[in-house]
């Protein structure tokens, strides 16, 4: 059976697994899906206080002459949260379903993919809040909005690739789940989320290209160009982001499919 037809046959499985994630995850909690918004909002407030008020990092000024540290942060934090969540949720997606892997044959990529899709739904919900916040600040979030599906696609593909990788790695080495915590922390500060890229440029000058290799940098740059500046992002940035995302996904996919026949024994 071809991979494509396997994927098509698994649509309903995927849908039900996503449903399970969304419904079961928040069953019995008062705030429900609202919790997925609380986290980035609280983080934004903390970072805005620490970096904006105490350390006095100036947020960049957009073409309309506006600047707002909270808005700058939030636009970067939301995709970032989705990324780091995909890594952590992906890591447990196979291990937590050991019994299923040992007893039933089904399309295995559906397990990590369902966590990515479920978190994607939360991400979409948080975007609505972001739009409202930007509109309230009278930021130009709409002129280039038509471009937004491009970085969103790139983000989704990157999340898929990362969760495929972390799910397999954690199956073989249970230390992965702890290393992911460390790894995302380092990655977080290597990405211009709480500080503008201009500060980095001032420090490392000619080596900026190295810093820019980080796929998350290009990705968040694209989100900010569209939502903070209201501009169409630079083609090179968009292509780099798309290219790296697809590359991570392809690597993740190959690793996953290679390891897949042995899941039932390893889990």
């Amino acid at each position, binding site marked *: 059976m071809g991979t494509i037809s396997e994927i098509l046959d698994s649509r*309903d499985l995927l849908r039900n697994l996503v449903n399970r994630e969304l419904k079961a995850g928040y069953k019995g909690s008062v705030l429900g899906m609202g919790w997925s918004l609380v986290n980035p909002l609280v983080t934004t407030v903390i970072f805005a206080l620490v970096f904006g008020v105490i350390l006095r990092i100036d947020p960049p000024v957009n073409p309309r002459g506006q600047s707002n540290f909270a808005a700058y942060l939030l636009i970067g934090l939301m995709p970032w949260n989705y990324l780091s969540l995909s890594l952590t949720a992906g890591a447990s997606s196979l291990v937590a*379903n050991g019994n299923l*892997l040992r007893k*039933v044959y*089904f399309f295995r990529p559906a397990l990590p993919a369902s966590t990515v899709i479920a978190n994607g739904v939360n991400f979409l919900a948080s975007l609505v809040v972001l739009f409202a916040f930007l509109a309230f600040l009278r930021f130009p979030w709409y002129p280039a909005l038509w471009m937004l599906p491009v970085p969103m696609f790139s983000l989704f593909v990157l999340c898929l690739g990362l969760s495929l990788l972390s799910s397999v790695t954690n199956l073989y080495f249970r230390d992965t789940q702890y290393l992911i915590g460390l790894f995302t922390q380092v990655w977080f500060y290597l990405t211009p989320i709480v500080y503008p890229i201009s500060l980095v440029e001032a420090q490392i000058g000619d080596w900026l290209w190295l810093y820019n290799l980080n796929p998350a940098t290009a990705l968040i740059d694209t989100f900010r160009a569209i939502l903070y500046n209201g501009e169409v992002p630079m083609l090179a940035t968009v292509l780099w982001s798309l290219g790296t995302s697809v590359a991570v996904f392809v690597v993740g996919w190959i690793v996953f499919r290679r390891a897949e026949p042995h899941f039932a024994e390893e889990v």
Partner: protein
Amino acid sequence: MAGSIRVEGVSKRFRLYHERPRSFKEMLVRRRKRVYDEFWALRDVSFEVHPGQSVGLIGANGSGKSTLLKCLAGILKPEEGRTVVDGKIGALLEVGAGFHPELTGRENVYLNGSILGLSRAEIRSRFDEIVEFADLEDFIDTPVKAYSSGMYVRLGFAIAVNVRPDILLVDEVLAVGDEQFQRKCLAKFEQMRAEGRTIVLVTHALDTVKAMCDRAVYLRKGRVAHVGEAHEVVDEYLTSVGEVTNREQGMILEGQRFGTRQVEITAVECLGPDGTPGSPIIAGRPMTIRLHWLAHEPVDDAEFRVDFWAHVNGVRIAEHTTRLSRTPVGRLAGEGTTELRVGDVPLVPGIYALSVAIQNRDGTRDYDHHDRRHHFTVEPGDDDRGAGVLALPVTWEITQKVSP
């Protein structure tokens, strides 16, 4: 044609890790040491199943039956050889796999159904049938965490049998639920068989194999020992298991042993009609169970007890004690043997488990209790006339009114 299975030279290797490096520290420390043993669960297994046949996989625990089933289901990948399966597979290796306790019965039907390969539309069209089969009409919108284990299993089973695959793989799950539900399940299998679906069944219930299967595959230590007509293979299996058990004089099962050990049961022998060790036990002929005991200190209130079980996990068929038979025991000291003689073994051919014990007179204390730690095999006699567990001394009589 849909429903056929070909197993070609399948070998499956497992690695038994003594202590698997699951962390970086361990990985660095024991980088070079080989920390596992290899063991072949299946070795060069080949056979063929034609569409519509039902096949029983039999063999002792650890003979590779479940591994073979998992290879057929695609859960495990064999190291050598291949399985060629034509048609949609439904694997009943576990009921209710993937149920989420927080979700309702209804939501879990959709979830579990799609894991088993049903589309949403298919589940919708079979939903009422599933709920009716599980007998859970009143609870279907309750979260399954509130279900009793029986309800849980019933729902899982109802979904699985409604997958309607070309090939159904079943692993021992026949033993779920109460008597009534088990009958319902067997009837469902019978119906699927009548519909021409292929069934592969792993079970210890040899009766079921004889009754339900056309053919059987007998696995011994991962190799095919015998393939053929179901009843023929079952008889072959019983004979060879009987030889092994009798040779080893009461092989020890995984049962419990407890007691104060003031008196210890040191050995248990099961003897056939001619009373010599190692002779086969034959249906309808006498047998003797001999307990060897050793009293570490004299005991005045000892009673002997032997229980017969239909299977290690089955029903207790009989309990016999010296007290119930009003046989005086007296003071036990030193060593000795005690025999329980059974007139004509009223059991159908099969494997039975034994519990043996030395207890005090009112049964409040065990000196030594081997709970289902021994077993014996009853081999076919000259005159087998029944199936099940007990062979009652029956005769049939048929009267017919001759119609004009």
